[in-house]
């Protein structure tokens, strides 16, 4: 399977994409583009010195990274969804190829011409890098980052594509927007989670090239922290890209050969595992004493409450993500219901959201307790963490139940619409509360606690309104119970309609 060049999927893409005319064009571009860039660079340096070659390499590298990432992302987005629409994918699904073989072939196949273009331009870029003063090791590291970035984005694009029954340009644009967001994460270098800046390919490549403080950005790009120990930023990049790629591979192995309606990206264990993974990464990257100055925000040592606020807020989004990702298709839910009513044991996904929240809390406690006694961490606010995680969990469960209920209706694109309705709810509640209680802090906090999980983002609420946080949890539990009752009602109704529609009659040949 590792010999991807013999993989039928890869061979198919290579045959279709690498026709002689296209190869000749790629070869011509590999000569013409560096020549044009070299001419432009020479206009600045006026000599073929080290600066000329170094600049030529950096510009070529930037072009290689941009073109190949965009190419692979767009091709990956088209790959499965367009084949589903064209009805060629059914034939692929009925072959003996496993999901893993299909994945490997497509991973390198969808943008095979782009990869060839990369290799051809490397013939000029690598000598330029060596003449520009970069060591061979640095060059290898830079291209490792580039290849890892392209693989990560190809996998993400394939995962999105596999979950759709026709191409959606809007989703493709969102993925490219994500690339832009990642690139801008370079600004997090000076923050309390410097390792997160490693997600930025720009930061990673600068770090790999050894740019460090010469980057002109005013940040120290060489170092991040893992459990407060300094490590090269590029190491964090590779760790993040490879682990995120591994998650995407696990998702793709589940959904690549399945029908769109049956595709569920996460299993129960994966859902909990993903929450634990993100929490573990964040806590590992946490640096309580950021030292790099921000131009607009002087460094401030964070305390335990800051960490709790960030982690709990992060877990709110994670629990929502996991909740929506593990929502059951209506058909599976009806089968479960019938088995459940027939006393046949079959587990459901939802309780595993609780396990995910507990996992996040355990990790947070594990991070905070060793810090006890250090400055700012004398009294770790574990009770606050537990309460806020309970709030996050209550809202996530309620809203997941709402999404699940929507999946049982005849709504088209039920999940997307349910998420949109929830967004509308929170915006409306925010506007109403702000207008009604705008100048009265205590009633405002009470209303916020009863109807939204906003307290997670703000830890300055008075202790006098603490009761309303508990009341808010109770309200969400009641709402979740009502939604469960509605789900049961629909399940009973649909099961009755199906079972009583007509008597069953079968004749065997």
């Amino acid at each position, binding site marked *: 399977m590792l010999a991807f060049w013999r993989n*039928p999927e890869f061979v198919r893409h290579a045959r279709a994409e690498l026709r002689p005319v296209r190869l000749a064009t790629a070869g011509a571009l590999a000569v013409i583009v560096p020549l044009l860039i070299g001419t432009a660079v020479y206009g600045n340096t006026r000599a073929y010195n080290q600066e000329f070659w170094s600049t030529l390499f950096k510009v070529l590298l930037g072009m290689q990274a941009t073109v190949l990432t965009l190419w692979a992302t767009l091709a990956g987005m088209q790959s499965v969804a367009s084949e589903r629409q064209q*009805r060629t994918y059914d034939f692929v699904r009925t072959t003996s190829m496993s999901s893993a073989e299909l994945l490997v072939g497509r991973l390198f196949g969808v943008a095979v011409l782009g990869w060839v273009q990369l290799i051809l331009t490397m013939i000029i870029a690598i000598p330029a890098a060596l003449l520009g003063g970069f060591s061979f090791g640095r060059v290898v590291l830079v291209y490792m980052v580039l290849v890892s970035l392209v693989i990560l984005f190809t996998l993400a694009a394939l995962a999105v594509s596999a979950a759709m029954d026709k191409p959606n340009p809007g989703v493709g644009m969102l993925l490219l927007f994500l690339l832009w967001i990642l690139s801008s994460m370079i600004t997090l270098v000076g923050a309390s989670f410097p390792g997160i800046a490693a997600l930025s390919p720009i930061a990673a490549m600068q770090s790999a090239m050894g740019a460090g403080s010469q980057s002109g950005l005013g940040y120290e790009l060489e170092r991040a922290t893992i459990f407060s120990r300094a490590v090269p930023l590029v190491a964090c990049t590779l760790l993040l890209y490879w682990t995120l790629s591994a998650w995407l591979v696990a998702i793709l192995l589940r959904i690549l050969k399945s029908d769109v309606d*049956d595709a569920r990206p996460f299993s129960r264990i994966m859902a909990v595992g993903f929450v634990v993974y993100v929490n573990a990464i964040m806590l590992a990257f946490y640096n309580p004493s950021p030292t790099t100055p921000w131009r607009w925000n002087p460094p401030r040592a964070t305390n335990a409450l800051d960490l709790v606020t960030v982690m709990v807020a992060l877990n709110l989004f994670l629990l929502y993500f996991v909740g929506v990702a593990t929502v059951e298709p209506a058909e599976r839910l009806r*089968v479960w219901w019938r088995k459940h009513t027939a006393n046949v044991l079959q587990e459901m996904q939802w309780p595993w959201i609780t396990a995910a929240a507990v996992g996040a809390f355990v990790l947070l406690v594990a991070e905070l307790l060793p810090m006890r006694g250090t400055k700012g961490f004398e009294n770790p606010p574990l009770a606050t963490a537990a309460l806020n995680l309970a709030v996050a969990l209550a809202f996530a469960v309620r809203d997941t139940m709402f999404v699940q209920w929507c999946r049982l209706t005849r709504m088209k694109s039920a999940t997307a619409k349910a998420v949109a309705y929830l967004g509308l709810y929170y915006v409306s509640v925010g506007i109403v509360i702000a207008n009604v209680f705008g100048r009265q802090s205590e009633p405002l906090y009470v209303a916020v606690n009863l109807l939204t999980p906003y307290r997670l983002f703000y830890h300055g609420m008075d202790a006098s309104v603490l009761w309303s946080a508990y009341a808010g949890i109770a309200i969400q539990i009641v709402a979740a119970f009502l939604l469960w009752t509605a789900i049961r009602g629909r399940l009973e109704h649909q099961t009755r309609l199906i079972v009583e529609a*007509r008597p069953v*009659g079968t004749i*065997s*040949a």
Partner: protein
Amino acid sequence: MIELVNLRKEYDEVVAVRDVSLKIAEGEIFGLIGPNGAGKTTLIRMTCGLLNPTWGTVRVNGIDVHAEPERAQQYIGYLSDFFNLYDDLKVWEYLDYFAHAYKMNEAEIPARIDALIAEMGLEVKRDAMIRGLSRGMRQRLGIARAIIHRPKLVLLDEPASGLDPKARFELKETLRKVRNGGATVVVSSHILPDLEDFCTSIGVMERGDMVRSGTIQAITLAEAPQRAIRVAWIGDGLAKMESVLGADARVSSLALEVRGGTFRFSGSDQALADLLQRAVTAGVAITSFSEVKQTVEELYMKISHNQVM
């Protein structure tokens, strides 16, 4: 070869396939007939593993298709009703891709591709791009793809739709060859003449139910236990014929005219031969004596209520 056990598929509040149980033996050409929306495509898609059933199991060659899909796929060839091919490949490249995807023996692949291309009459298009092929050629290439790995079961969903009469005739010939190669063929169609003189057994689907299934002969017998017989003679044979037929209790619905007529007979082939013998012995100069066979279409019209979901 195929065994479906309580196969069921539900969508929202609709049952697309309702608890179908069926066994199809090796070497059969099974015609799955029914109106559009009867559940034929859903049944075929579940059988080849593309769609997970709500309940029930599908076994092909003894392998559970949904438990061991990749192993089962080696025995299954599938062609859907409307399909596309990879237009950016050449004809031989397309077949080569699927031969490898079905994990055929590497050494066997080139010869198999050449043989199939010849069998499908695509020799002159071997190195042509698929985008330049006609509708009939694409259909033949689709069938070649479905059978390249010599599957034991070939599932074809409305394979004749959109084909001209010549291409339909060629399709029948091709599928006969596939059957003669030892495969079981399941063909769905709502164009019943397509299945005439071709299927060895049929299944009639309506609103997700398999309302009848079995050999054409068995279903015909079940639907009309009395066979319709047409007889013609020359000379003055009417009285003698009435006498011979009237004396046999198994004869009914007698409608005779001066030179011929029809009647219904409920006996065996041997009893029918004896009846003919008695008529000849009685001196009737018989010029023709034949059973009026029911077409699949007539049979279907008797069984079906033409109900869709």
